[in-house]
């Protein structure tokens, strides 16, 4: 494989992984505070639709992203209202958000744009622009290894770099700030947090708000960078794959990043590997590679690749006992 191929593979991996990374970080924040989030898919879809529709109608990139963030946070707040304030079932609420968003985006898309659920294709001015293109061009004549890295790492749109930077940011938030410590405590032992006089509800709502923002960024990326517009059901299960990646990363931001890169790599390489015989295994069907992220997550959950320990109070609504 020559360096151009390696470079494009790295580039594809990063591009495919970006929405996964953002959603996995969102899930990480929510689940570390104790709230199961199965609504990632729905939040990504609805925020993508909001961004695509707003960009098409208003024509402004910042406003489109702002609207997407508002929608994302609203959905997370709804999740919080049902599950944190009223102790509803978190799994069911996540499914409800996903199912409703999947239907609503198509209904509104058809009604407002009459293109079978798609939003109009967006002009470049409203889309996320690539960064570091000058450096990419400059390094085109560089020696082999550097050229591969340059092709792979430079010239992506801003959201890719933002996603990568958010990983240490979220890690730092969780591990090195007081808010993060309390958030993690709310997910492990909410009674103790309550006894210390800190509001468990407020912490969980805070985590959900950040969750909404990150999902909105993922939705923005899909519509404003990766695809020309919003297409019905464009997330195609990526929300669940992000959840799987977060679990595979053992609820840690860095682990989630590595898992997302792995899953992204599998997705990017799937087409390339199709039909090509691997050593010892022979030709691997593309469906096996598509299923591999999910199989790996199941294997991890079964405890065969080390222990995956969920936050102790995950999924248990906290009720103050007077």
């Amino acid at each position, binding site marked *: 494989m020559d360096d151009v191929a390696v470079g494009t593979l790295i580039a594809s991996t990063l591009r495919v992984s970006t929405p996964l990374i953002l959603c996995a970080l969102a899930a990480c924040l929510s689940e570390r505070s104790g709230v*199961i989030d*199965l609504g990632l898919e729905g939040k990504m879809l609805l925020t993508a639709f909001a961004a695509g529709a707003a960009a098409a109608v208003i024509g402004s990139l910042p406003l489109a992203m702002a609207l997407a963030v508002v929608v994302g946070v609203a959905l997370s707040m709804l999740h919080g209202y*049902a*599950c944190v304030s*009223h*102790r*509803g*079932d*978190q*799994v*069911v*609420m996540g*499914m*409800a*958000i*996903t*199912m*409703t*968003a*999947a*239907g*609503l985006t*198509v*209904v*509104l898309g*058809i*009604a*407002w744009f*009459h293109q079978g*659920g798609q939003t109009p294709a967006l002009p470049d001015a409203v889309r996320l622009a690539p960064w570091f293109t000058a450096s990419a061009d400059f390094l085109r004549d560089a020696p082999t290894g550097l050229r591969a890295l340059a092709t792979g790492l430079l010239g992506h749109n801003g959201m890719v770099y933002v996603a990568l930077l958010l990983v240490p940011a979220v890690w730092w938030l969780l591990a090195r700030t007081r808010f993060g410590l309390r958030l993690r405590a709310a997910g492990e032992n909410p009674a103790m947090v309550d006894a210390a006089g800190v509001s468990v509800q407020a912490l969980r709502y805070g985590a959900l708000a950040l969750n909404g923002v990150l999902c909105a960024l993922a939705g923005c990326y899909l519509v404003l960078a990766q695809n020309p517009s919003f297409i*019905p059901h464009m997330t195609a*299960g990526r929300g*669940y794959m992000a*959840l*799987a990646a977060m*679990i595979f990363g053992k609820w840690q931001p860095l682990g989630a990043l590595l898992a997302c890169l792995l899953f992204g790599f599998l997705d990017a390489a799937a087409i390339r590997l199709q039909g090509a015989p691997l050593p010892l295994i022979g030709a691997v*069907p593309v*469906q*096996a590679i*598509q*299923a591999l992220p*999910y*199989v790996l*997550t*199941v294997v991890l*959950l*079964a*405890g065969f690749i080390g222990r995956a320990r*969920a936050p102790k109070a995950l999924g248990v609504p906290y009720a103050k006992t007077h």
Partner: protein
Amino acid sequence: MSSGHELPRWLDLGVLPLFNLALALLVCGIVVLVIGLDPGQVLSLLAKGAFGSRMGISYTLYYATTFVFTGLAVAVAFHGGLFNIGGEGQAMLGGIGTALVALALADHWPAWLVLPLMTLAAAAFGLAWAAVPAALQAWRGSHVVITTIMFNFIASALLSWLLINVLKEPGNMTVESRSFGPGAHVPAVHEVLGALGIEWPRSPLNLSVLLAAASAALVYLLVWRTRPGYMLRAVGFAPEAARYAGIGPRAQVMFSMMLSGAFAGLVGINEVAGVHGRLLLDYVVGAGFAGIAVSLIGRNHPVGIVLASLLFGALYQGGAELAFEIPGFSRDMVFTLQGLIVLFSGAMAQVAAPTLARAWFAIERRLAPRPAHG
């Protein structure tokens, strides 16, 4: 005075689901208004499409059949204390099982032999697909919700691989298997009625509807009238107390999930055998998730599930008719309503309960006769 904040049973089982359904319909009505349609017109056209003709009723019942199977699957697991979101994948495997038996036997063996075998295969494959997540939960503690979601995707990949690499007819462009032989033909209702001399329009409604009704009755008897069902409910309701009483939790987890998967697998009989007569990629499409909605609003009881399945069948059929009649309407409105029903009957099911209880006790106080003085 009022006995605390417990809702009377008839309010809890009868009024609360209807109240939650009304909320979901209200929000959906707002969406209908937002997209510029008239909710009253939409509702009346929907009812007409679903029940206004014999063809409409047949389609409604055909959709309801699938939903009864997936709804029962969710309910049975729920009574065991587990949330089975894997109905999609288990239904896919059920279809695969049906198809494999049909492709192997239906060319040479008669229907009375092949059809029961196909039914058993559908249930067995669905059962097996649910058994793996169940075993992982029981023995390794892996959360069954996550594993069943993963298994849905794995099932989809498996079905895709099977169709493209193994079962596809060479030279055929469409991704489907060859048609099943005559032994795999599930009699359609219009054929049966025609044989009895009753004229009935052609529709996909087939005898699986009887299988669905029988399954609902079976679930009722099994869960509420037998000892295994009692043990199942005990483990679902109070796992520690059940363990103290000697009921092994692992066995119950396996039992509830396998039974659940078996019912979900029966979707294969209705869709793959009853309607299409060959294996395709997209015969499940959302039936598993509709089953979750059906079970939630049916309060996990077979009677509620049958009623809710009829409701959803009517929504799907009415929605298809509406998509023809009204240019801006698409079936995704039905999926939105489905999601809203899961929202209000599932996640926010108990949000309305205290308000309803307070209203009920206020009414009760007003209606109660005044105590005699002196």
